[in-house]
């Protein structure tokens, strides 16, 4: 397998070309907008909770970005549907990285994390829980 195929494996390109959960949502229960200051990419995430107010019923995202950021966000929507907001807000990033399954340089890691970070901010804001270290700055600097 050559380097291109390793990085841009079929599943990544598939999620990029046919993103799951792409679109906007009116009256979302949680939403946030994130930007990657390195490249200017933007993503907005919308979440609807189930009747229990805790379970993630639906996630959508819109915005623009590279194949890695878009595919990662698309995979994320599939990963978190049906899970508890509180768990997703604390999701270990390795879980997403495993799903992505390709080696990432530090710059591309930021691309891959854009969706997850934005989703966490959305959930913390909706639940009124304090943003963990690292996300606090994100909210203030990039989400103004």
């Amino acid at each position, binding site marked *: 397998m050559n*380097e291109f195929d390793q990085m841009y494996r079929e599943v990544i*390109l598939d999620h990029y070309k046919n993103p799951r959960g792409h679109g906007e949502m009116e009256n979302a229960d949680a939403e946030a907008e994130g930007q990657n200051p390195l*490249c200017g*990419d933007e993503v907005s995430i919308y979440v609807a909770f189930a009747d229990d107010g805790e379970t993630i019923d639906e996630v959508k995202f819109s915005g*623009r970005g590279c*194949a*890695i950021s878009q595919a990662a966000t698309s995979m994320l929507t599939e990963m978190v549907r049906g899970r508890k907001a509180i768990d997703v807000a604390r999701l270990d990033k390795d879980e997403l990285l495993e799903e992505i399954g390709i080696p990432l340089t530090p*710059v*591309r890691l930021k*691309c891959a994390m854009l969706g997850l970070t934005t989703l966490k901010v959305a959930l913390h804001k909706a639940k009124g829980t304090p943003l963990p270290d690292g996300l606090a700055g994100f909210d203030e600097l990039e989400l103004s």
Partner: protein
Amino acid sequence: MAVQAPKKRLDARAIRADFPIFEQLIHGQPLAFLDSAASSQKPRQMLEEMTEFYSTSYANVHRGVYVLAERATAALEGAREKVRALVNAPDVREIIFVRNATEAINLVAYSWGLNNLGPGDLVVVTELEHHSNFVPWQYIAGRTGAKLAMIPLTDEGELDLSGLDAIAAQGQIKVVATNQVSNSLGTINPVEKLVAWAHDQGAIFVCDAAQSAPHMTVDVQALGADFVAISAHKMCGPSGVGALWGRTELLRAMEPFLLGGHMINSVRLEKTTWGELPHKFEAGTAPMAEAVGFGAAIDYLQAIGFDAIEAYEHELAAYALGRLGELDGLTLYGPPADRRAGIVSFNVEGVHPHDVAQILDMQGVAIRAGHHCCQPLMQKLGVAATNRASFYLYTVREEIDQLVEGLHTVRKVFA
């Protein structure tokens, strides 16, 4: 009888041999380095001069009375004179060493802006500015109550000067600040015209020459500007040093920017008085070896000749635009080759610049992908990012060919 000297043509292949960086393979491929607009590579001659300075003449400057301090002082001041000659400044005391062009612009924005701007005043920049020549003005305008106005762009990525009167009607223009060459589109801006306009309005003109000084003659007297900012690292010099040129009268009237050692005349508990130019603006230990390297880089470039460099980069830009034009699904931004420096920005349909740059890197081709510190411009173009290939005196056509080959692979991966 005056005989016109034959125009020297630059020999990029010979020049390239001066740059050790090209002696390696990247991902098993020869390096195609197409990101000189971000920072240039370094010639051996410059590196050796810095090493020589550190090895034989290093000590802190100015205050020492021993031989090494004298040598170091002479080296620093020698470099200052080289910068003066580079930009044809009338007086060497008008050359202030700073960290980079960004710091030079901040110096003017703070030291001049805070005392000269207020409500009703206008600071005029363009949609084509690097964040370095945008954010400081936006911030200082905000702090002083002045307004920021923008000169817009035409669809070809050139400044649209048709609306200047309308801008002037919005308030009292105090500063016009533009770049001479755009780092993202390569546009060469009509600085002389804008200087004349600024002076008609009673405004000062600040020229961001970070992207022009490496590639063409920048003559501050011919330009007529009031301040000019440059960075050494983009012109074969080391990182960590740049220069601000400013008119003596303006510099004298300004407050200092950074405070501390070396910039003073006398320090008393009651009152401190500022040193003479340029020291008033050079607080703290100077970037001595970096300045020496800057001087060596200037020597290197002048020996080749800025006319030859500029002409060669035009050739490369024309060649690149032609080759990239062969590719389907490619959008090129910016003016035609004869009106731009050696910078080409483009997008590949359906492929984000990060992905383009990543796949190119795997083939040994280094380009930049992103907003190039020009988010207002990206907004105007309606994109988040572009790809940018930029050239310098060591660039050879094979590197552009390697780029085009690489772009075919990009298309295949994303087909």
